[in-house]
């Protein structure tokens, strides 16, 4: 039972770190639906780096840099070129999926490093996720930079008129988000399940994306939601631990995704929008072009 919880928290760390990155950029108005692709790319490159060098540090560094680079790319398309951010994100996912399948193939198999150390029996990166949630909350709601970021996500033209560089802040958000999402990808491939396989991520990026909406753009609810999905995921793998002989295991396996879909249906109801809709950044996913 307690081991179920620990492994759930390890899974929650992956969801939470990636979702916190996405939350940060969505607060600034940038939508990246290609989280899965970013995580695949950075997880794979991080895995290769760690495996060839034998160093976790190098693995994480490469993963974070990869994430930053993809964030920059997404920024370039959606900020500078003003293209459709959803289409862009899908392209990133397909690119990540294809490229990692091709590049990662020779490295198929276990990482072969000592297991990543834990802290007092808890997964280290779950504690990192908690710390990040606090840091991001503080950044968004207690600092001027955070106020500016949120303004850019709500109404870029008002922000611009208040002397804020919309372009600069959105790039900053996209790159920071890329770094966090990249870290999340590496936590999966180096710590949670350090065995490379093609499409090893199995849609976790999409769950992390759903989590951001699920959380109403609140970093603490991201962590809570991540724990919920972490437990759910483990249950889907080993349902007999808690509910022996209820449903077939195939139904359990589908559960996290079914719940994701249900969450999205609830989020798009009129009732929900009326009650909670004001929390969504108003300019989310919208390109901003300066006048004149």
């Amino acid at each position, binding site marked *: 039972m307690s081991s179920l919880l620990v492994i759930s928290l390890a899974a929650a760390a992956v969801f939470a770190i990636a979702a916190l990155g996405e939350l940060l950029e969505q607060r600034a108005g940038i939508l990246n639906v290609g989280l899965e692709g970013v995580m695949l790319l950075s997880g794979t490159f991080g895995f290769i780096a760690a495996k060839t060098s034998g160093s976790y540090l190098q693995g994480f560094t490469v993963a974070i840099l990869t994430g930053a680079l993809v964030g920059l790319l997404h920024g370039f398309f959606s900020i500078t070129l003003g293209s459709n951010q959803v289409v862009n994100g899908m392209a990133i996912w397909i690119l990540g999926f294809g490229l990692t399948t091709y590049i990662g193939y020779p490295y198929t198999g276990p990482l072969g490093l000592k297991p990543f150390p834990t802290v007092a029996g808890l997964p280290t990166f779950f504690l990192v996720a908690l710390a990040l949630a606090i840091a991001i909350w503080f950044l968004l709601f*207690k*600092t*001027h*930079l*955070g*106020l*500016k970021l*949120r*303004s850019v996500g*709500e*109404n870029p*033209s*008002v*922000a611009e*008129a*208040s*002397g*804020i560089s919309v372009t600069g802040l959105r790039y900053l958000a996209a790159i920071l988000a890329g770094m966090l999402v990249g870290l999340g990808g590496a936590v999966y491939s180096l710590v949670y399940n350090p065995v490379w396989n093609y499409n090893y991520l199995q849609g976790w990026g999409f769950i992390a994306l759903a989590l951001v909406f699920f959380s109403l753009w609140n970093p603490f609810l991201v962590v809570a939601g991540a724990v919920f999905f972490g437990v759910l995921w483990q249950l889907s793998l080993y349902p007999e631990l808690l509910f022996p002989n209820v449903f077939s295991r195939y139904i359990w396996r589908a559960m996290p995704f079914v719940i994701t879909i249900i969450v999205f249906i609830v989020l798009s109801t009129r009732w929900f929008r*009326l*009650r909670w*809709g*004001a*929390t969504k*950044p*108003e300019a989310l996913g919208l390109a901003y072009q300066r006048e004149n």
Partner: protein
Amino acid sequence: MPLSAQEESDERSVGAARARSAGRVVLEARGITKRFGTVVANDRIDLTVRAGELHAVLGENGAGKTTLMRILFGELQPDEGEIYLDGQRVRFRSPRDALRHGIGMVHQERKLIPAHTALENIILGHPKTGAILNLREAEREVSTLCERYGFRVPLHAKVWQLSEGEKQIVEILKELYHGARILILDEPTSVLSPPEIVKLLESLTRMAKEDLAVIPFITHKLPVVLEHCDRVTILRRGRVVAEMETQHATEQTLAAAMVGREVVLQLERVQVPLGDPIVRVQDLWVRDDRGLFAVQGLSFEIRAGEILGIAGVAGNGQEPLAEALAGLRPVERGTITLDSIDITHAPVLERWRRGLGYIPTERREVGSIPTFSLVDNVLLNYHFESEFSRWGILASGQARELTERILREYSVVAAGPNAPARSLSGGNLQKVILGRVLARKPRFLIACLPTHGLDVGAAEFVQRKLLEAKQSGTAVLLISEDLDEILALSDRIAAIYEGQFTGIVPVSEASKELVGELMAGLRRERV
């Protein structure tokens, strides 16, 4: 304008020095000319604003006010002419540049972030706002400003919860906090009830006395201007036609200068014998987009040959009411009947077939499709009628004929029936929309801000047509933010405040003061 104790005493001595130099010129524009193609929007405009006085700029729509404002605010560059600040020649390359010189602008459309608090909006982007937000300190400074000028606004409320008047105050505070010394206000009175207008103008006067140059640009509400402003500059067709002290002016002279001819500020309202009640609304409750009840238990009826005017400040439930009546917004509780038939939940099309007509507020978003021809736009109100579509094929000849008739009868200036709607001016487009709906001979007509933004000529025309419709037996619901228009057209006036009627009075008993107080929620008549 944060004040430490030290600065405050400085401020006082500066204020004293200023009082001595009252009348000193703060802002001067000389010979401002701006052309757009062949149109001269500003033609050698001179404007001199002195310290210590409230100086309004008056003009009709299209007189060049907006262009002048945008030039003063650095949004446009003049083709000719110079601007002097405190005697120094200045040139603004951008609005930010203008703000650096102490020019602040309060636009008509709000530049605030609804999801943030008032205070967050005010301090946003100010260099003094440190890396870590110190909201308590900021609140103290903003409160000082509020006290000084007599503003009251809940600083920790989210902006979307504020009234239009409060939002405007937040914008003024924002400009002051960011160091504006010259404040340009675009139609500051348009979103306020009469008592709120008086309060705002009192605050502005206080600001003007303190060496801030405050320049409201105003189209309507001449009496208030006369009462509170010291000096006015009047624009017409891009030129300054008069500059005068208000103590030497009357409402008539101001209006005549603005329009260029004697204006008859009277419409002939013919009383026709009232027929049966056409529309009956019982205890109507409607939610707005945020899910709050914007219409709270309204009940009224309108008879054939009657205009019921809804007087209210923008955002008190008029829009949701009109949309619910037109079938565009669900009704939560209550009933609507048209000719004794319950249409509370009837689809839009059924309402139209039963004789409803709707003139929406947004001429170009809801009232028309800008890229469509006028014929197609006219068809939007007729496509479901058998004369206009047989077996799903449009009778284009019919539609064209009808459009041509409308263009003729309403003297619309347009290239022809096939001209796209976007090529028409606001006034001409409104005439098409009006002609289109009146040609249906509606039993019940909802007219939302029918003359908003129109020049005097077009507005008069629209008003006459509404009176004609009434005389031919239509029940008209007139929603307007212009109290003069409501008083001139309505047979009965219902004042709306926060979704409720504060009074329904026959026009014979309605004075401007009474309706003004009802609109502001300061008093209630038994409804």
